[in-house]
């Protein structure tokens, strides 16, 4: 009986947390379906009536959001793919190899995390300009191909994997890269997944850098389209902003829902067994 009660309490708490998380999204959805005159009523109106689907049509009329979505997908997956390679290789070296200056080099990687992104805008802009890459999708990806944060995260994960495993592998004649591929990466999967999520979401949300290095709609991303509905002088166009936000956040939600089970699994079956 007591166990049941505590179960109930856990479930209630979890349900409450879920509700708190979901409420803003429901409000977003509700506002995106309203007419302008229905948004700001003295008492909040949760169910939009009459329903107005016109906001979505108008959002797509204002800017090529389909194209923006494709560009965003290319940019975030491009960054993630290259990061996975650079980050695992760098983390492997820092975690498992001894060489002169390793500590100082690693410190430099950490320092990179502390430099505010804005300070790097001009030098990065100049580099891209000399490479003639301004106003391309590559321009939005290139500065993020390496990641100090990812390297740090993964190095810590690699270090926690017992030496015994490496010794066993070496005795069996397994080389460095093979060991990385067959042992370290599978065991560090939760960290890789976590880092992947962070990278995906943060670059999905990038605004200022894409805005600065791109000029034309054919390469621009979703956030720039979203920015068109937020105005400094007059405040936002709420119904349109919410409709656009639904469209911008929906792909991330879908990705998460589809892979949800995988994510959780990868967190559960880890560590050294037996």
């Amino acid at each position: 009986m007591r166990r049941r009660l505590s179960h109930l309490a856990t479930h209630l708490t979890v349900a409450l947390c879920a509700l708190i998380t979901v409420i803003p999204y429901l409000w977003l959805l509700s506002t995106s379906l309203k007419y302008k005159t229905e948004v700001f009523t003295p008492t909040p109106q949760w169910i939009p009536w009459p329903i107005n689907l016109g906001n979505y049509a108008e959002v797509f009329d204002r800017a090529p959001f389909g194209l923006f979505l494709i560009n965003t997908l290319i940019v975030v997956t491009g960054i993630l793919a290259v990061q996975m390679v650079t980050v695992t290789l760098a983390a492997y070296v820092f975690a498992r190899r001894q060489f002169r200056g390793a500590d100082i080099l690693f410190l430099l990687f950490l320092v990179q995390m502390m430099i505010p992104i804005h300070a790097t805008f001009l030098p990065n802009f100049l580099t891209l300009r000399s490479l003639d890459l301004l106003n391309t999708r590559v321009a939005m990806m290139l500065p993020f191909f390496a990641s100090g944060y990812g390297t740090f995260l993964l190095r810590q994960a690699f270090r926690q994997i017992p030496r015994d495993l490496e010794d066993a592998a070496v005795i069996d004649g397994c080389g460095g890269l093979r060991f990385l591929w067959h042992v370290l990466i599978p065991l560090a999967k939760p960290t890789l997944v976590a880092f992947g999520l962070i990278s995906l979401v943060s670059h999905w949300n990038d605004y200022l850098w894409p805005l600065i290095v791109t000029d034309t709609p054919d390469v621009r991303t979703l956030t720039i389209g979203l920015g068109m509905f937020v105005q400094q002088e007059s405040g936002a166009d709420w119904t349109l902003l919410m409709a656009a936000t639904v469209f911008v956040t929906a792909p991330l939600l879908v990705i998460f829902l589809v892979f949800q089970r995988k994510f959780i699994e990868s967190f559960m079956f880890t560590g050294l067994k037996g």
Partner: protein
Amino acid sequence: MRWKWGMLWTAVAAILAVAVVHAGAQAPSKLIRLTFYYPVGVAGPLAKVIGEMTDKFNKDNPGIEVVPVYSGDYDPTLQKVQTSVMAGNPPDIFIVEISELPTLLAMNAIIPLDDYVKKAERGKYWEDFFPAFRENSTLRGKIWWIPFQRSTPVFYWNKELFKKAGLDPEKPPQTWAELKEMAKKLTVREGNEVKQWGVTVSGGWNDWLFEAFVRQNGSWLINPEGTKVNFDSKEAVEALAFWVDLMHKEKVGPPHSTWGSTPPDFVAQRTAMLYHSTGILTFLRSSAKFDFGVAFMPKSKTFGAEVGGGNLAIARKISKERQDAAWKFIEWMTSSENAAHWSMASGYVATRASAYTVPAFKEFLAKDARYLVARDQLQYASGKMMAPNFQKIREILKKQLDDAVDGKVAPKEAMVTVQKQVETVIKR
């Protein structure tokens, strides 16, 4: 061996032919392609409007192609312009917020436009702009940029709530004293909770509104050259004391709000009166279910306001030929007809007197005279304060304004602090 030479000659001939054809195709019309960075400051499909306007210009002006580039809000636009200028790759034409003129000059980013302005419209071009809008264009005796998307703060009131409170719905407050009395009557409380504020002085750009109050009280904050500051004047302290009265002592107005949240508050009838930009009029018209009016901001010693918005500039580090083409575009964008068209599409104030004689605009204004209030108030308006490092100055002022309306510091003390801190910023 012979066929090899033959092949070679054929190849050379082919390359030459291609080169000739290529050159031939380019020679007759040398196209000047100009980049134009613009921010979108008010709600509405303005990116589309700008696109349509540039398309029209390009069609009418063969040899020039203006490529409009949406560059976010004012702050991101400035950042994009600065980055490009520092990289030696400036946009040919751009719009940024008017207070940034000293910043642009410090970067040596733009050229003076006096020679162009003098010749435009047979010398009658510049005089036609409203004097208040011209003010933020001139510095050190030169004209640097042309008013384009311009606004000014005005006063909005909810006629229905006036009726409910037993006030004449057609009579907005004329003076600060009347404002305070009406705000008291219009504030509705339930216990300790305020259900409806009397008046909201919008936050976020409250530094901008504060400047208007100081103007109404007969003073100024920074001189046009950006060399002298006057934050601790008796008039400025009084203006802040009036704010403290409204928001802290009488509690008839919210001490904190954001620029974007107060128009929705007005629409939801959570505030009966509102200080905000003329740029929200179109939003209010499309969102409010009740009748509301637009009026001059109430006066203290005089009616007073200042202007805001963005101007059009031409980059320095481009060829003379490109600058000439850029001017042609700016002159076209700011013609009477286009100023009127832009005002109708955006809700900004048309920048020139003659725009108000354009038939289509006259017709538009006949339907809703509320759009004329901002123009009429311009006779009492002045330029917005500007100085190098303006963002820093804004922060200093906003901090003290917020602390004062919270009752954390006395008005006098707050303004003395602003004076001291801004002086060091300007001297730097």
